[in-house]
């Protein structure tokens, strides 16, 4: 097994203590930082697919994401400027009135693993704060709105509408959460919908590359 393959396997297995050492070994062997990063991105893609398929659960996703994060810390000084976030910036938050964060946090991790720079606004985020974040951050390509409660779906609708009528351009909006359906996403004018964190990363890339 090549060192890069080993890195990929250990990220997938969530071995956060082992991955940094393996990444350094891969670099020492002469592998390009970008290739090692790509292997970790692929590992997280596999993790996302397994999560969507119900083969693994939230703890396994979290430890895999942590393993990748530790690996990226070792890679950062070696990466060509900008290559670690070549897909752009994603603003993410749970909409106003909703304090649930685990789903949003999983999506944030998966989207970051896919190659975005993620700005996490937290929970109970008013629409004005989403707009402010788009305004204040560079290269915003995606805004992701999360909501778990049926009672916060109006807030999601208002947020998407506010983003779309703000005059700000250059980004797409993706929504998700337990009560959200593709039909609701379409109805409120979102550009995309994802049923879970794995799907969100795939959809995020599709929206940005399209």
């Amino acid at each position, binding site marked *: 097994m090549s060192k890069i393959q080993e890195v990929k396997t250990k990220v997938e297995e*969530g071995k*956060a203590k082992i991955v940094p050492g393996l990444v350094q070994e891969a670099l020492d062997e002469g592998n390009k930082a970008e290739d090692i990063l790509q292997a970790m991105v692929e590992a997280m893609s596999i993790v996302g697919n397994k999560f969507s398929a*119900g083969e*693994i*659960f*939230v*703890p*396994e996703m*979290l*430890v895999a994401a*942590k393993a990748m994060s530790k690996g990226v810390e070792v890679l950062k000084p070696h990466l060509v400027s900008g290559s670690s976030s070549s897909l752009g910036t994603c603003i993410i938050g749970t909409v*106003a*009135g*909703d*304090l*649930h*964060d*685990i*789903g949003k*946090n999983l999506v944030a991790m998966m989207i970051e693993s896919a190659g975005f720079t993620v700005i996490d606004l937290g929970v*109970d985020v008013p629409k004005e704060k989403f707009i402010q974040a788009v305004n204040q951050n560079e290269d915003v390509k995606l805004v992701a709105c999360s909501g778990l*409660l*049926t*009672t*916060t779906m109006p807030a999601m609708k208002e947020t998407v509408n506010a983003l779309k009528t703000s005059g700000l351009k250059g980004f797409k909006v993706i929504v998700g959460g*337990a*009560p959200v359906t593709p039909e609701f996403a379409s109805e409120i004018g979102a550009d995309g919908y994802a049923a*879970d964190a794995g799907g969100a990363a795939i959809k995020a890339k599709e929206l940005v590359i399209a």
Partner: protein
Amino acid sequence: MLTKRENLLETIRGGKPDRFVNQFEFLELIYEVPSDAEPIMPGKESLTPWGVTYRWPEGQLGGFPVHDEEHIVLKDITEWEKYVKAPSVIFPEERWEPAIKHANSVDRKDKYVTVFVAPGLFEMTHHLMRMENALTSYYEEPEKMHDLIKYLTEWELEYARTLCDHLHPDAIFHHDDWGSAISTFISPDMFAEFFLDSAKQIYGYYKDHGVKLVIHHSDSYAATLVPYMIEMGIDIWQGTMSTNDIPDLIEKYGGQISFMGGIDSGVVDKEGWTPELIESVVRKECTECGTHYFIPNAIQGLPMSTFPGVYQCIDEKIDLMSVGPGMPPAGGPGMPPAGGPGMPPAGGLK
């Protein structure tokens, strides 16, 4: 006509219920149990005796723990003993009087005197330390998580002791959400490793001290945990979402455990709800699931709804399903109607 308690027993034993059990009707929840928790109110924050802060945004369904750096209780699992202090379960006897009076007023031939305990062990771990920290710690610090869960279990057992000593409950309604709408939060293996023994201890204590019925709330998908629910002594899983394929669960596990739910609150308990919507959902679930091992119920964890009138409407529609030709066969399609030829006429049982 069978009493509510008798009808419940017929339902969960696969006997001859004469009507659908109607949501929580068979439980008399004793809410007056003494507690030092601050009341949770819309638009406010409140503190539990464990030090967890809940915030209830105005206009929303309920409170949720706050986990910013200022409010998080358990900052480092490796030093959990420093942060987690179990509250006392000892209260002056006069503070028990309202609960005892209520419990003593209940006709136990009709209903189960029921104590409500929340949050459960799994919820406590993430209420104390934030969900990601808890879930990651199962892998990174398993021994510390076992120690924490053991500490929480000891508190639950102490609490069980004082509840049983004072109220002699017939049933316990215990709240612990184990998953989302489509998945459990942790794998069944991890669940068994960390929680099964503790849950067996807790539910075993209650059953050794007079409790006849253990009802566990988890408004989620949790079909993969049903074998463990049976092993730990749960009689009724309340909050069974429709995502669990309840007819399939009844077929596989009916007789070992019963399922209370089927009516997803997110579908019916919403702005603009209509009686027609509720009737269609109730009819579907009752018809598909039948009267054995199934109690039609909105999955929310208490006998209430967020939007006024929804809970009462569900009650009415369930009663309609129990009248005359509308009632599906007991135990499922093809079985004789519950109550046999003596079925009450259309127009109502009561």
